[in-house]
């Protein structure tokens, strides 16, 4: 027996002596491994992950609910896995929402369900907004399993794989109606203007206001050298208003504008009414302002020309057919200080001023049948005439002789005009 043991020990000793160098030779030497990014298959990244594969429809739902009211959505969950999955939906509040959604606002039925492979289960998600909820937008997720997307670093909230997104707008009809939600006008430098903003309180309680100039609509055009300066500063505008709009009454906010003599360009701004009522969201309590400063010339535009034959001279002057002003003028739009375009025309030759006769005044329009370039929701107006633009034309005539002439045109309420001079014998 001892003899056998001695042989075995001796054999192991010899094997170990032979094996040591070979084993040492097979110790892996650390080396730098270059990973080719193109070889990483995103689809295979989580192939080995063990998570429930559910299909959730809809994946997104939006609700608009008044405080004290509720709404609901039915979500169908389909098991795309090969084993039964227990879906137990819960609210996962996302922290990046405008307002924090409360878990207690949601009721989901059934609370839990075992879903066999390739079968569907409907869940009813009911959202109840309490009466004292803040007006605004809320966002949250409804997760049906607790499987989360793995991340190599900690995240502030888990990203659930089997979830849907729920967006809720909590709103209420405004207690104050802003009957003048914007002020848009073409104004002349050096002149004063007064505007009225009407606020109607339809609630049964008084509501405080504190109108002031706001930066929220501070937008100016960008040219090649940066943004343009406004036509005038905020201090050109004076606002006077009551501090309270009484229940059931209409209050008037007076806006006085003194356009400086040297102003030109446009002014965009806003008045934040600072309406102290939860039914008014931030942007709802704003009155937009846009003023374009119009500089009325005092000297006429002049054009000299020479006629080589005796005969009548005809002058035709038109306002810009695409001018916003012309459009507003003829279409009866709401420019607050609406005045007609007109032209003061003079014609002189070597003998002095020549009497001109206004032959005719013409309104030219552009009309569409709504066939193209209209918003899709106005497509049902196709086939009905729609005015697009208009222009105003005055035609003058004067008898004349060959010689040098000077035409003078002083436009009023026309920011662009064109002229045509016709002379010479007719055919």
């Amino acid at each position, binding site marked *: 027996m001892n003899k056998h043991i001695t042989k075995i020990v001796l054999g192991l000793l010899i094997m170990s002596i032979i094996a040591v160098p070979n084993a040492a030779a097979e110790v892996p030497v650390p080396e730098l491994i270059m990973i080719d990014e193109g070889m990483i298959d995103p689809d295979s990244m989580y192939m080995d992950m063990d998570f429930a594969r559910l299909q959730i429809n809809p994946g997104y739902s939006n609700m*608009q609910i008044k405080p004290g009211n509720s709404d609901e959505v039915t979500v169908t969950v389909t098991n795309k896995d090969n084993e039964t999955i227990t879906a137990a939906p819960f609210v996962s509040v996302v922290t990046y929402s405008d307002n924090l959604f409360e878990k207690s606002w949601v009721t989901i039925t059934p609370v839990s369900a075992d879903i066999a492979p390739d079968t569907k289960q409907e869940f009813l998600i009911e959202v109840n907004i309490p009466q004292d909820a803040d007006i605004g937008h809320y966002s949250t997720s409804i997760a049906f399993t607790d499987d989360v997307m793995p991340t190599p670093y900690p995240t502030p909230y888990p990203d659930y794989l089997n979830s849907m997104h729920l967006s809720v707008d909590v*709103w209420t*009809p*405004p207690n104050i*109606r*802003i*009957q*003048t*939600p*914007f002020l*848009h006008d073409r104004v002349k430098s050096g002149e004063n203007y007064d505007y009225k903003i009407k606020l109607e309180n339809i609630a049964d309680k008084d509501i405080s206001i504190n109108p002031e100039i706001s930066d929220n*609509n501070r*937008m*100016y*055009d960008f040219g090649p050298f940066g943004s*343009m300066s406004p036509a005038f500063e905020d201090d050109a505008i004076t606002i006077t208003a009551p501090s309270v709009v009484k229940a059931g009454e209409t209050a008037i906010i007076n806006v006085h504008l003194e356009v400086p003599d040297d102003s030109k*360009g*446009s002014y*965009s701004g806003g008045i934040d009414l600072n309406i102290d009522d939860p039914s008014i969201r931030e*942007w*709802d309590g*704003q*009155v*937009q302002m*846009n003023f*374009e400063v119009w500089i009325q010339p005092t000297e006429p535009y002049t054009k000299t020309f020479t006629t080589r034959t005796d005969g009548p001279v005809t002058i035709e002057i038109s306002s810009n057919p*695409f001018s*916003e002003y012309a*459009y*507003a003028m003829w*279409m*009866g*739009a*709401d*420019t607050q200080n609406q005045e007609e375009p007109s032209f003061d025309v003079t014609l002189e030759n070597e003998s002095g001023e020549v009497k001109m006769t206004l032959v005719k005044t013409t309104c030219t329009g552009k009309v569409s049948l*709504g066939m193209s*370039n*209209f*918003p*899709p*929701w*106005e*497509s*049902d*107006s*196709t*086939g*009905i005439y*729609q005015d*697009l*633009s208009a222009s105003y034309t005055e035609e003058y005539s004067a008898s004349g002789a060959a010689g040098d002439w000077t035409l003078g045109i002083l436009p009023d309420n026309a920011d662009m005009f064109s002229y045509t001079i016709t002379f010479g014998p007719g055919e």
Partner: protein
Amino acid sequence: MKKIIDLCAVLLFIVLIASISGCVVGTDDEALENGVAWIGTPPADSVAIEKKIIQQAIPYTGTKYENITVSALQNNGKLRLHVSGVLANTMRIDLYDFTYNYDKKELTRVSYLLEAIPESVRGEAIGIAMQDEQVRNVLSAGMGAYGNPSVKRILPETAEKFYEPKTLLSVTWKHISLSALVDVDAGQVVDVWSGN
């Protein structure tokens, strides 16, 4: 002298009878308020057609057409009707185009362009549109872009394709190809078109 008195008496009697019968003074207010005025000769079945027009040409909620005028034209065997409705205190009108099928006695609305909207609602819709971020961004892109938009009523049948089957208002700055679809009840813009 007696002949003149007799003649005057006869004329007075005729005028009196005519007044009572509605020929001269008696334009029926009720009929005018609820009926339509035809331009030219009314077509056959005009009374039945009028009733159908009134059922389909409905003014903005809470308002009433001051008058409705209809012109009719026979075209390729079909009766085409052009209807305009005018609201009190507004220069803007509602326009409808219909066809009438005599065989089926059906009135089909082909087109509509509805701008007869109370000024307060019109202003509110423009204000809501101008508060939309996307609209503001487009409007701020160029001087003079603000302009005066058109405001048109979009009927629920059309609105359903873009939002919900309810009356919406389309606020459009045509010269810069910008339009906002506004839900005045909810005080929000539900869709924006910028020429694309």
